[in-house]
């Protein structure tokens, strides 16, 4: 294993988290039990949504959110190209067609509502608003657009738990018809593999709950509690359950999530202060957006792709781990979905950005180390 001077991400795992998992393991009840219920209740309270249903991953969350929204074969789902592949792949699971749209600009690289409007056809049924890197997409505009065209709005909150959409402090995942979250190991709230669907609609939440466990009318837990052993299967469901140890871990970590996000934001601010005057670096998003972001990643923009690639290589040589996110239309599997205009903004941001190390465990000294290397590299 390479020893990075500053790794891209890092996870703090205090002993109370470990203890929560061990308590669960000692109980001997590992699936769909009291800890999952408690985690879901706490998550609903945290996000400010009536219903939170845990699932096995962010991908599972998107899949079930689209299913619960009634998306099916032949439908079109508008998805920004600058996102993780699951945002588009999940529409394909249902036989629907992802329609790639552009982002606003490299400096505001979330889904562009104007571009969404241009791509609506009679077959469009849903829009997936991705809150990329923890920065809230313009869901107010998208909500109005979706209402006007009777489209379902799905919020892809995989990178954005705890992010706010407005100054009133409303969370991402509360404006769309359904929200999909991820608890993957690199995420702000991580348990390994895991996810969640949020919805204000009781019926849609119930459908997600049903389909995450093979559309069985009763669970192992219900039967353990003495309910009748007979059950029916009333739809084609999946095994998208989260298990109890992960629910226990998530519940324990949720207590510190706001503190962790505050710590991430402090790092983002520290980077921005120091990098604002470095020639050759541009910082996306406004200071106001930074305050509302939950800071999954800290992206910066370089002049062009070649400069970015050189920049990353030199940071790597100095022990600084970075990453970047390819646009979907650059993948072999999605190339043929590129529209004639070539999605210029998504292409540009994918080419130019680089995500610097960011975690809740970083301190200002680590920021200083990274910034020093950045300054040297760009000098």
């Amino acid at each position, binding site marked *: 294993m390479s020893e990075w001077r500053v790794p891209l991400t*890092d996870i703090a795992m205090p002993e109370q988290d470990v203890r929560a998992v061990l308590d669960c393991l000692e109980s001997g009840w590992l699936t769909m039990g009291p800890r999952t219920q408690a985690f879901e209740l706490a998550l609903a309270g945290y996000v400010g949504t009536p219903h939170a249903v845990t699932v096995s991953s962010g991908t599972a969350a998107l899949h079930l959110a689209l299913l619960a929204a009634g998306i099916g074969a032949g439908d079109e789902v508008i998805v920004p190209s600058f996102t993780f592949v699951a945002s588009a792949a999940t529409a394909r699971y249902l036989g629907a067609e992802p329609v790639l749209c552009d982002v606003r600009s490299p400096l505001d690289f979330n889904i562009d509502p104007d571009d969404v409007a241009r791509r609506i056809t009679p077959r469009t049924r849903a829009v997936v608003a991705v809150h990329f890197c923890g920065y809230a997409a313009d869901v107010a505009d998208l909500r109005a657009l979706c209402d006007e065209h009777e489209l379902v709005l799905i919020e892809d909150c995989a990178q954005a738990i705890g992010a706010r959409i407005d100054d009133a402090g409303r969370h991402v995942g509360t404006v769309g018809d359904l929200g999909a979250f991820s608890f993957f190991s690199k995420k702000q709230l991580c348990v390994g593999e895991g996810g969640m669907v949020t919805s204000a609609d009781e019926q849609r939440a119930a459908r997600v709950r049903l389909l995450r466990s093979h559309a069985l009318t009763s669970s192992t837990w219900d039967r353990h509690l003495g309910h009748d052993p007979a059950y029916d299967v009333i739809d084609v469901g999946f095994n998208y359950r989260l298990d109890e140890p992960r629910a226990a871990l998530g519940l324990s970590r949720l207590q510190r999530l706001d503190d962790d996000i505050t710590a991430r934001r402090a790092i983002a601010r520290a980077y921005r202060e120091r990098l604002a005057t470095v020639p050759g670096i541009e910082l996306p998003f406004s200071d106001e957006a930074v305050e509302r972001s939950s800071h999954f990643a800290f992206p910066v923009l370089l002049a062009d792709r070649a400069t970015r690639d050189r920049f990353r290589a030199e940071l790597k040589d100095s022990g600084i781990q970075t*990453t970047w996110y390819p646009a979907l239309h650059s993948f072999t599997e999605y190339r043929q979905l590129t529209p004639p205009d070539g999605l210029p903004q998504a292409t540009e941001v994918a080419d130019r950005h680089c995500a610097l190390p960011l975690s809740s465990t970083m301190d200002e000294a680590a920021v200083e180390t990274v910034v020093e290397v950045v300054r040297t590299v760009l000098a």
Partner: protein
Amino acid sequence: MATVDISPQLPLFDLRLAPQDLEAVAETLRSGWLTLGPRTAELERAFAEHLGARHAIALSSCTAALHLAYLAAGVGPGDEVIVPAFTFVATAAAALYCGATPVFAEISSRARPSIDPADVERRITPRTKAVCAVHYAGYAAPVDRLRELCDAHGIALIEDVAHAPSATLAGRKLGTWGLAGAFSFFSNKVLSVGEGGLLCTDSDEVAELSRSRRSHAMTSGTWDRHVGRTDTYDVVGLGYNYRLDEPRAALLLSRLQRLEAEIARRRELTVRYRELLAHVDGIIVPFDDDEVESSSCYVIAIMLEQDGRQSEVSSRLRERGIQTSIFYPAIHRFSAYRERFPDISLPVTELASRTELTLPFYPHMTHEDQDRVVTALAEAIAP
């Protein structure tokens, strides 16, 4: 009867983990690396070695393993997959995920509730791409005969090994007879971690496809990038998130060390259960005594000889604090499947489903508890 009412409940299953299992998970959590890392790689190596298979791919569930196994067998829209209906719904649902049609085959008998090769043969059509054999309760389905049949017709044999880790047929591990085997690590299973699964195969192509599809068909993983092996990735197919995470891989690795010992204990208890049950009138105890030695002894399944008494006997046992379950309601009788596939008749499967009861069973079960279950069962059945 008052003494019976206040006795502790005997659950269907009861999982007890060892201190070293907990330590393995704690150590993984403290490492801070939670997904697709060294523990998953080690689990896959150890499990493949344990099975005598070339490849083992850790997955999020057995459902995921079945889905990938069918995809690897080339199952797609318009194809047919022959499956038993006397199994958990995932065996058939995974065929629907591929856009294929599950074609339900009969079991041999209530005394041998495994898929019937003769019935499988009758249901093969030009659209059949795969046959899935379920090793019910941990006892080998006739995968030797099914293998010959599938080879003769050029179709894939998939094994649903959810119940049967480490079980064998003719000395060969179940899961290694076909193109791919799908294992479950669900919480009530012989080797449980909560949610989890695994696909084993001897085929390099099947392994490569499964590895790729379990993580969105990305050409590199987070771990590769962390260790500096690659810089970026391509997406080269339609994939899923079917990954197992590191804490579960660590728990499995730890539990795998004791798997044989636990199964040995399960076999002893199963032999004793079968001796006791042999004296109960009005039941069929599936499989032969001499098959216990090669079984993983997942559950104790019995069939009530008389039809129409399942719910009543189950209720009577529940009143005595004894939990039972039905392994399994027939898939083709579920609402979701009747809508899609009406008019399917599988009389043997249906009778088995209407008369089966699964009794409490776990490795630390005491002889007294076994006696209590069997006595209560005999009383519950008695007119």
